[in-house]
């Protein structure tokens, strides 16, 4: 689960970390009041969406799609500029490298006091899967796209692994400060803030914290000028305060509904819907559709113990996508029996009056019974023995190139 920058900053502030004063706004009036409240000095007017790359993004009118303004994060030197920027941002669509061409509507704004920056750094905390422990990554190239830095100058990224038995040691943070070339008062400020940030990462079960940029001010303080914070979905049960920060309007509504039904769904751009049990097999099903000349419309894993009701919900979710012209069901019945799946498929196609071509491949426990039920249903359901056969069949039925 991700949260907005303004929410992340509040978590930082509550944890005693150095952030600038700022105000969350949803209207131009609030933005102007925030400017006044922050003392009428230079402020940053920042679009709040969950995707990154906001600074280099562009704002477009939701009606005409016309460009309204370049840059989703603006520095305002006076009240008039605050008004202009807030007007240009709120209610418009922000397109960044991470949002895709459809962009995201900006409903929230953060007006934040400026500071005198001497240098910008990059810092992130995440879990290193291979080392199986938290990793702090930092670079002197703040404000830049870290993926680009990682590719072009990997030696410019400094890494500190945190052994779970020992925790983060003060000398590790001091070492990182030295690697970044910090000296004097900035080192103490860095150690205090980064140690605090790591504690927050652990105590709130974050999956990632990215501060880009982390800045050193002219008076040698370290300030967290950005806050991209993600949380481990599996740990949300122990963080009711974090669940409250969730902004569902930032998430794909169908994916949210699928999750509530115990399904895992990701929408894609193709026209062949897939309904599969197991994440690996669901990915493989998409791959094989593509291999035989089709384009998958979605990833959908019904899980290991899906029942008739979940299968019906899954069909409903797939059919909501107007691009879908046919559906491939691929079930390897292990714990889940194929005859139960077959009955679910029949119930769902009848309940939803499915007219698109449907190919069902059932193997595993009770597959003969499952296939017999489908064959005897009198419905227009094609059955396949292997995944390859099923994929070729559905691609042909929807009129792909193969």
């Amino acid at each position, binding site marked *: 689960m991700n949260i907005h920058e303004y929410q992340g900053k509040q978590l930082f502030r509550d944890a005693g970390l150095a952030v600038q004063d700022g105000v969350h706004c949803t209207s131009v009036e609030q933005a102007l009041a925030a400017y006044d409240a922050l003392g009428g000095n230079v402020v940053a007017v920042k679009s709040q969406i969950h995707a990154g790359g906001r600074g280099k993004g562009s704002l477009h009118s939701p009606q005409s799609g016309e460009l309204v303004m370049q840059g989703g994060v603006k520095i305002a030197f006076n009240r008039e500029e605050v008004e202009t920027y807030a007007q240009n941002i709120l209610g418009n669509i922000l397109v960044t490298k991470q949002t895709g061409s459809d962009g995201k509507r900006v409903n929230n704004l953060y007006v934040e006091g400026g500071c005198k920056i001497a240098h910008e750094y990059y810092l992130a905390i995440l879990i290193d899967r291979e080392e199986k422990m938290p990793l702090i990554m930092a670079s002197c190239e703040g404000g830049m796209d870290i993926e680009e830095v990682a590719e072009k100058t990997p030696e410019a990224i400094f890494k500190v692994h945190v052994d779970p038995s020992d925790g983060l040691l003060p000398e590790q943070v001091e070492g990182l400060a030295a690697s970044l070339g910090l000296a004097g008062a900035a080192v103490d400020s860095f150690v205090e803030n980064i140690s605090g940030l790591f504690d927050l990462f652990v105590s709130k079960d974050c999956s990632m914290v990215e501060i880009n940029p982390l800045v050193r001010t002219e008076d040698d303080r370290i300030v967290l000028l950005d806050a991209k914070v993600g949380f481990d979905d599996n740990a949300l049960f122990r963080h009711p305060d974090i669940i409250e920060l969730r902004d569902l309007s930032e998430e794909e509504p169908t994916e949210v509904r699928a999750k509530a039904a115990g399904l895992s769904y990701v929408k894609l751009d193709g026209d062949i819907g897939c309904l599969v049990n197991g994440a690996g*097999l669901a990915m493989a099903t998409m791959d094989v559709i593509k291999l035989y000349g089709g384009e998958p419309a979605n990833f959908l894993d019904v899980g290991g113990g899906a029942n008739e009701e979940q299968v019906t919900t899954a069909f409903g979710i797939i059919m909501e996508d107007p691009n879908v012209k046919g559906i491939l069901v691929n079930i390897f019945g292990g714990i889940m029996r194929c005859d139960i799946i077959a009955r679910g498929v029949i119930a769902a196609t009848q309940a939803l009056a499915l007219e698109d071509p449907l190919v069902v491949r059932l193997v595993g426990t009770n597959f003969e019974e499952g296939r017999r039920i489908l064959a005897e249903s009198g419905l227009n359901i094609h059955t396949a023995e292997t995944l390859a056969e099923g994929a070729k069949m559905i691609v042909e039925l929807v009129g792909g190139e193969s």
Partner: protein
Amino acid sequence: MSIWIGEDAKVLVQGITGNQGTFHATKMAEYGTNIVGGVTPRKGGQIVDLGSVQAPVWNTMVEAIEATDADASVIYVPPRFAGAAIIEAANAFSQVRGNGVIVCITEGIPTLDMVKAVDHVHNTDGVRLIGPNCPGIITPGETGGSKIGIMPGHIHAKGRIGIVSKSGTLTYEAVAQTMSIDEGQSTCIGIGGDPVNGTGFIDCLSAFENDEQTVAVVMIGEIGGTAEEDAAAWVAENMSKPVVGFVAGMTAPPGKRMGHAGAIISGGKGTASEKVAAMEAAGIRCANDPSEIGAVLLESLKTAGLR
């Protein structure tokens, strides 16, 4: 032989009195797994009816291992308690008999709980963790065998192919593919789809390399992380037996979690094409389609003079 789990391994079920625990313990006992009992805190002294077996319940893993000298445990406890269950099992195996295999089936364990649990297991001599978020491990026998997990037992047969996979149903697909060319399995291991897990590809490959029963290995990967690339590098250096592979997620978009918590392409890393390229470069022949794993395996067995 086989790896880590013998055909008659003595197995405890952690969470045996829960719905999932009882259901799967019954299925395991039906298959022929030697279930010697289970553990649920505060339910010690009860007997759970598994049909073919009446399984005694203990309050703690220490008591259960002392009473049964179990070789392995399988965990079906809910996600929020699973990390602690792994640590309890590791301590108990180490303390009572000096070794043991822990298989964690539970899906949805907080990542930082797994960081702690994996670190603990790593620092506890003689204990191996398989999973979490995995189908488990199975060593098929002539009749029955040892099934420790949730996989459908009846699709397996004893044989000479080792299987290691991040995915559940795709492992079953690989098993069916070996059967389609009249080959059985020595041991099949699901290492799980979480970002932080216990046993990895290299542990399994290395054990298969040293196992007399195994002559070739099927390795199934998926997007996310670099475990497949690391395994490929290891195979190139150390593996004499043929390895064939498949990687799921060629069409997965970046930045989206594909069901498994660990199946995500992030920061341009963890794509299927990179993994396949690394595996092919290491001499691991990869199928483009899981339905072709059997054919690719057969080809590799012939090349190696094994068919």
